[in-house]
């Protein structure tokens, strides 16, 4: 089973001081850059298009196509912005990648900027992860010193400057247009579209915004060829991706595998569920993706497979919960997160999350009524697809999916007059054999 792993991005993570330039180059780093600089920018775009790489930030938009939207006849400067504002509950792939191998990202930034003809690129890193910001800053400095960045890179005549920007602690800034607002020094709230960032993004100029993992995948595509990349994964979800397993699993962590792998295989790779326990529910791509249950263990983890199951592949943030976990409690915690992170711009998300938390909190305490479940679903219906950006949609996913699969558990709270679970049983410090 172990051969299902396809370490590319994570291949060098185990190396000594893997984050240094020396270590990265020792493992073949920056070879893709030299190849790319010898290609025409359009050929780089074509290679990424041919590879079938789809955005790794969750939405799965074809990366090469996004680059192709940049109007090259626009006289304004072009910008590449890397979305490293990884804040989704459960998502933990970009931050480890930037910690372990920041140069993979930097090399990807240079090649991608070269392809779209940007002379300035920004890496917008979540503000709370200061250690990561420092590590990427150090990598960028190393890249400058080595001539990978700056003017006339390796004699190619191509110039690129990279700015590492620290966010200020807002989940909404992971939304690409809110990120641009934040980058411009304004309040982080999503922008009206159109115009789309490809036409008028950062400083009203053509801008490509890509996830860290998408950009980090580019050097390997250039170095090994589009066919190599497309040979992995499934028909419409090509290549590999980092699957982050967290929760009640024996060896949580980042598992890099072709898209289309199943959760059952991944759990096996991770040493199975917590000893003595069984999978109860899981999220395929962070808390914003509708949750699934043990009956979905064998679904292919690719964009199509997850969509078919009524959820989304998202960021492949697989949060696993065993039978000790109260789904109402978990969903309430997530909802509290969305309430806290709602930017406030639009009514459904701002007011809806405020109300959802109150309704859920009453249910958890066993104070609600059965009709409150219908009220919750109606509130979700009034938020989903009515809010300004996807944050509001994401806030409804755990609620509506949990009611779909665990309605009885909600009702049990009402019958029990409170939560029937022992909250300590789900913790890592639970005594062995703790029962739900």
């Amino acid at each position, binding site marked *: 089973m172990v051969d299902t792993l396809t370490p590319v991005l994570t291949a060098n993570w185990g190396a000594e001081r893997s984050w240094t330039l020396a270590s990265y180059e020792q493992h073949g780093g920056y070879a893709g850059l030299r190849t790319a600089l010898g290609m025409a920018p359009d050929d780089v775009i074509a290679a990424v298009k041919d590879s079938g790489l789809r955005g790794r930030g969750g939405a799965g938009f074809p990366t090469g196509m996004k680059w192709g939207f940049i109007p090259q006849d626009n006289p304004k400067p072009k910008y590449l912005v890397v979305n490293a504002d990884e804040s989704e509950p459960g998502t933990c792939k970009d931050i480890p990648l930037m910690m372990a191998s920041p140069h993979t990202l930097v090399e990807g930034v240079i090649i991608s900027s070269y392809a779209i003809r940007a002379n300035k690129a920004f890496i917008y890193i979540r503000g709370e992860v200061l250690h990561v910001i420092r590590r990427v800053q150090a990598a960028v400095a190393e890249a400058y010193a080595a001539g990978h960045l700056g003017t006339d890179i390796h004699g190619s005549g191509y110039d690129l400057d990279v700015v590492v920007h620290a966010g200020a602690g*807002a989940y*909404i800034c992971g939304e690409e247009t809110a990120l641009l607002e934040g980058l411009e020094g304004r*309040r982080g*709230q999503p922008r*009206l579209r159109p115009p789309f960032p490809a036409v008028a993004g950062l400083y009203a100029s053509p801008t490509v915004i890509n996830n860290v993992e998408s950009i980090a995948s580019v050097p390997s595509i250039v170095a090994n060829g589009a066919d190599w990349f497309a040979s992995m994964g499934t028909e419409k979800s090509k290549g590999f991706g980092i699957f982050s397993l967290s929760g009640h699993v024996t060896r949580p962590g980042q598992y890099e595998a072709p898209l289309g792998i199943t959760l059952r295989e991944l759990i096996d790779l991770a040493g199975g569920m917590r000893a003595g326990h069984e999978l109860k529910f899981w999220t395929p791509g962070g808390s914003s993706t509708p949750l699934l249950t043990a009956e979905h263990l064998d679904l292919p983890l690719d964009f199509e497979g997850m969509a078919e199951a009524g959820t989304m592949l998202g960021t492949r943030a697989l949060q696993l919960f065993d039978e000790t976990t109260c789904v109402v409690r978990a969903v309430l915690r997530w909802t509290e997160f969305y*309430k*806290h*992170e*709602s*930017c*406030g*711009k*639009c*009514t*459904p998300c*701002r*007011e*809806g*999350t*405020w*109300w959802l938390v*109150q*309704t859920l909190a*009453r249910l958890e305490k066993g104070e*609600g009524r059965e009709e*409150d479940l219908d*009220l919750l679903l*109606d*509130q979700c*219906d*009034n*938020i989903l*697809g*009515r*809010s*300004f950006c996807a944050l509001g949609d994401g806030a409804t996913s755990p609620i509506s999916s949990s009611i779909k699969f665990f309605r009885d558990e909600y009702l049990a709270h009402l019958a029990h007059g409170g939560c029937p679970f022992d909250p300590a049983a789900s913790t890592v410090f639970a005594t062995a054999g703790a029962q739900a």
Partner: protein
Amino acid sequence: MTSTPEKTSGAQPDVELVQVTIDGIEVSVPKDTLVIRAAEQVGVQIPRFCDHPLLEPVGACRQCLVDVPDAGNGRGFPKPQASCTLPVAPGMVVNTQATSEVADKAQQGVMEFLLVNHPLDCPVCDKGGECPLQNQAMSNGRGESRFTASGGVKRTFPKPINLSPQVLLDRERCIVCQRCTRFADEIAGDPFIALVERGAQQQIGIAESAPFLSYFSGNTIQICPVGALTSESYRFRSRPFDLVSTPSVAEHDACGSAIRVDHRRGKVMRRLAGNDPEVNEEWITDKDRFAFTYAGLEDRLGYPQVRDRVEDGGDGSLRPASWPEAFAVAARGLAAAGATAVLTGGRMSTEDAYAYAKLARVSLGTNDIDFRARPHSTEEERFLAAHVALGTPGSGAVTYADLESAATVVLAGLEPEDEAGAVFLRLRRAARHGTRVLAVAPYLSRGLGKLSAHLVPTAPGAEAAALAAMVEHAEHGVDATTVVLVGERLATSPGALGAAAELAARTGARLAWVPRRAGDRGAVEAGCLPTLLPGGRPVADAAARVDAAASWGVASLPETPGRDADAIVAALLAGEVGGLVVGGVDPADTPDPAATRAALAAASFVVALDLRETEVTRVADVVFPVAAAVEKAGTFVNWEGRARAFEAVLPSPSALPDLRVLAGISEELAALGRGAALGFRTVDEVRAEMADLGAWDGERPALETTGAATGQPAGEGVALSTWKQMIDDGAMQAGDKHLAATARPAVARLSPATYAAAALSGASVTVVGDRGELTLPVEQVPGMVDDVVWVPSASFGTSVLERLASPGSRVSLKGASL
């Protein structure tokens, strides 16, 4: 509601039409129309909060969601769309709440969310009764709150906080639609309010040291769709349904802004912006909005008074008199005084101004009349006759719309933000859409900065040279797509008005005069000038005199061109003129306040018409209380030449319009054998007579320009630049302390080099002029013309002319400590 008003006139260029189907009704609307506006065309009002036709779309409140089964490409949107951000597309099919359950449920859902954290304190809220949230909750919401029924807990805030001395914010009521912040940013250019915090805690806030000080802040209160923003002046004063609303026209500047006066039991409670797309759109200045209390102050004159003159055996004091007695005493006194002159301030309605103009000619037999209670010049008089009189939007005069379509607008002697608020806002919008603004001014003021103006650095007095240099200055590119706006202050700069006319003539640019006061432009039309009769008829033109005389039914009119205000003052002092009829003039505004006061004292007989007791009424022999703008019908002609008629809002039992007073005097004079009676007593009669008289269709006097600009004024010291700030010590701003608290502080501005050259050190400067000295905080302005000091004209208790310097004189600077 904020439905889009239809423009009533103006050239509509051929626009591409798009056919869409809304609720099953096909409608053609101009390309790029937003769905929410297109729906209005088929009679469907989609509920909305953040949407405002004059603000950029934001799509924040989500109240206007509609179902779009076909976006015009055969495919529908899977989710309801915000109709305020969605432009129409050919073949688009839209179903609103009227026909779509999806849209209706979406709207009901958003409305329910909006009320989650809204306090529902409608019974004590100022907005209750005229509240879009209240109204639309009724039309598009549910009757019972599921939030409250399920035991929901609302987010609360401490009750209102001040955003400025005038504007308060009740954060609980706010639905954060961002109308106010967008107005402040997009329209006024004063982005001192902004969103802070997030989620349900999101609120409107100000920076600690930067309150929402904007000349246009009151507009945010009016466009707030809930009761979150209130004014100190109006909050808790009345309920909307107790108010009677009357449309009117603002009397504080020459913009002619439409306003709505709301009154209750004979008292004005508040004023709101009217909606006139051609003029002020939906915005007015805070002065127009809040400065109305002057008409109801304690010192308002309540009855006519006559002086028991010592020479007639009286004690020399004013005593109350009946109207007939006052008319008779005034007429007898004027008849006995010999030569009589007329001074009117710039605040008259056109009908009143006409009455003064006619009184001078047919009753007093003189052309000694001038409305310019401010520094003026003979050149200005000629300029007004040649380039201003008779211009109307219909006859090719510059309009607000022209400011927007102009490629370049040149400003000379005009600070629009202070002196013409609606012009400023329109220029700002023009500038945001690419119009270039060139400002002939000594420094780039904040107002000019908001117009992205390019400064043509010019010392006071050097405007003529600066304008002359523009004729062939390639960089400035003044041509037929340019509009030149000159302010009344240009009269004090020799040759400047002529140079502006010359610039327009040689480049094909269009020219307009923007005075400060509401009555100035109308007074030109009405003939309140020594060389102009009503309707632009030149006194010097015999045919014009005959034309007017025939219309008025008198044998002839005085031939000698009259004296202007300065000459009238001089003639009174010299004893050449004995009688004076004066209406609404503050001596402190006149070019030489001391001389004006001396002239009043020297006059043998003074008849004063005024609202409140003033230093003129105190020395007058007969005093008539006259009606304030709100108490009479009238017309202001705005800077465009557009007639802005208004009707009386409130009755005034104790005051008459000026024209009625003058008619009474003229009738008594006629009885004494002096001239003819005016022949009218009401505003309607004056309007009919003015229409009858019509405009002069004969030859217009030309403005002879000297050709050569006068160049830099020389002399010791530094040049004095000054104008009135919008909110200052003006008599018509009296009575609202909250408005007064929003005034910009008085400071003296000068360039760093001038500061250094004057060897100043502290934070204050004393400006010394030929009439006194003034100590103000000093502000160094980089880029300002050297050897110039700017001070506000009337922001420190009295006027510059009174306390500092004579017009055009130079001043010196010395260090000071405040």
